[in-house]
């Protein structure tokens, strides 16, 4: 029975992907991509990875979806188009891509057996951190360096986006709402945020022991903030404002500070003293959740459009 479900899921994923590529209308292609993200979340569940499923649905599908839909609306009719590839050219590209897929497929079929795994190593560290969710333990203890660098990459991307602001608007307010706001959107923006904030905080809190965690919680909080800004209930903050900058940098700074304190109080960089491991990890996660929420919302909001008031 599950096999039938798996095959249907794979067929759905591939059909949607092909549809996204072939559909001439940009808007329906992006909506198909949103559906693709949701189905992909189901695939991750089937791969026994609920944490990844939550992240994929929230960020990969939802976050990227709203980003692309806003971009489509902004560049409609005046987007830059390259010259179309000729028919034989397309055929050649298709053959090349199929060859790459076939090679990857062969690699999948000839994976080493028994499979190499780091699960025992991760499980060993689990008891020392006091966490119950192995993925959270890997993200914040076993491979904390990756997570730290990733936070910096997100901030770098945000700096890149902000630097596209016109000179006069530097440090000003991004334009999030566009034109007339439909009534249902304004209604949802009043009703949803209380629930969304509770769900976000819950996801962050259970992330220590159950599927959930910083990124998923941050994305839900970012979505709520964006909803309020899209409906015009609150204007976006000035990108030069101190509270926003503090929220953005606070997570990585606290992470780095605790990482360096590891030299003095534990075994080295990014090591936690054993007795304090769980409280420290929770503190880092809380600060990171806020940073992720602010960074993701600002990435969607885009560069400043209006000059700062001062």
């Amino acid at each position, binding site marked *: 029975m599950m096999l039938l479900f798996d095959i249907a899921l794979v067929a759905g994923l591939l059909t949607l992907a092909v549809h996204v590529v072939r559909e001439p209308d940009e808007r329906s292609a992006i909506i198909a991509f949103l559906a693709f993200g949701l189905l992909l979340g189901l695939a991750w569940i089937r791969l026994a*990875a609920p944490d990844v499923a939550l992240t994929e649905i929230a960020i990969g599908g939802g976050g990227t979806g709203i980003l692309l839909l806003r971009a489509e609306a902004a560049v409609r009719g005046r987007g830059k188009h390259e010259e179309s590839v000729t028919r034989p050219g397309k055929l050649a*590209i298709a053959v090349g891509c199929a060859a790459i897929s076939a090679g990857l497929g062969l690699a*999948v079929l000839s994976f080493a057996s028994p499979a190499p795994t780091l699960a025992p190593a991760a499980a060993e560290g689990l008891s020392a951190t006091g966490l119950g969710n192995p993925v959270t333990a890997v*993200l914040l203890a076993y491979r904390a360096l990756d997570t730290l660098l990733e936070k910096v990459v997100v901030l770098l991307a*945000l700096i890149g986006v902000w630097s596209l602001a016109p000179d006069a608007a530097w440090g000003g307010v991004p334009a999030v709402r566009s034109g007339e706001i439909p009534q249902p959107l304004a209604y949802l923006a009043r009703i949803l945020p209380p629930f969304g904030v509770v769900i976000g905080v819950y996801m962050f809190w259970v992330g220590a022991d159950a599927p959930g965690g910083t990124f998923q919680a941050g994305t839900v909080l970012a979505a709520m903030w964006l909803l309020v800004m899209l409906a015009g209930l609150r204007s976006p903050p000035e990108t030069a404002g101190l509270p926003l900058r503090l929220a953005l940098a606070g997570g990585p700074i606290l992470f780095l500070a605790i990482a360096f304190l590891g030299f003095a109080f534990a075994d080295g960089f990014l090591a936690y003293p054993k007795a304090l491991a769980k409280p420290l990890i929770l503190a880092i996660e809380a600060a990171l959740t806020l940073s992720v929420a602010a960074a993701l919302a600002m990435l969607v909001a*885009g560069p400043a459009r209006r000059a700062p008031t001062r």
Partner: protein
Amino acid sequence: MTVALQPSVLFGLCGAALVGIGLFAVVSSPGLLRRIVGCNILGAGIFLVFGAVARRGAGAGFEADPVPQALVITGIVVAFSASALAVALLKRLAEPRSDA
């Protein structure tokens, strides 16, 4: 034959196919926005292959190896950041030139 139908192999193959479909969009699409979407499909395919690796690495009481899972979560967030930067560049490109 039954080996090929396990979830890890099935979704691994699906990921391999998605890489090809995404790459095709990146190389052959005339619209730049569609190329960004193609990049995301390509990335999703790679993550799915990695997910198949994680599923096969089950052990120590976990249903899947947590290390690749954590790396994929990191990857999804980085992919989103890259898409956001690409979209911002695309919007800037579509704006009427002020110096002309």
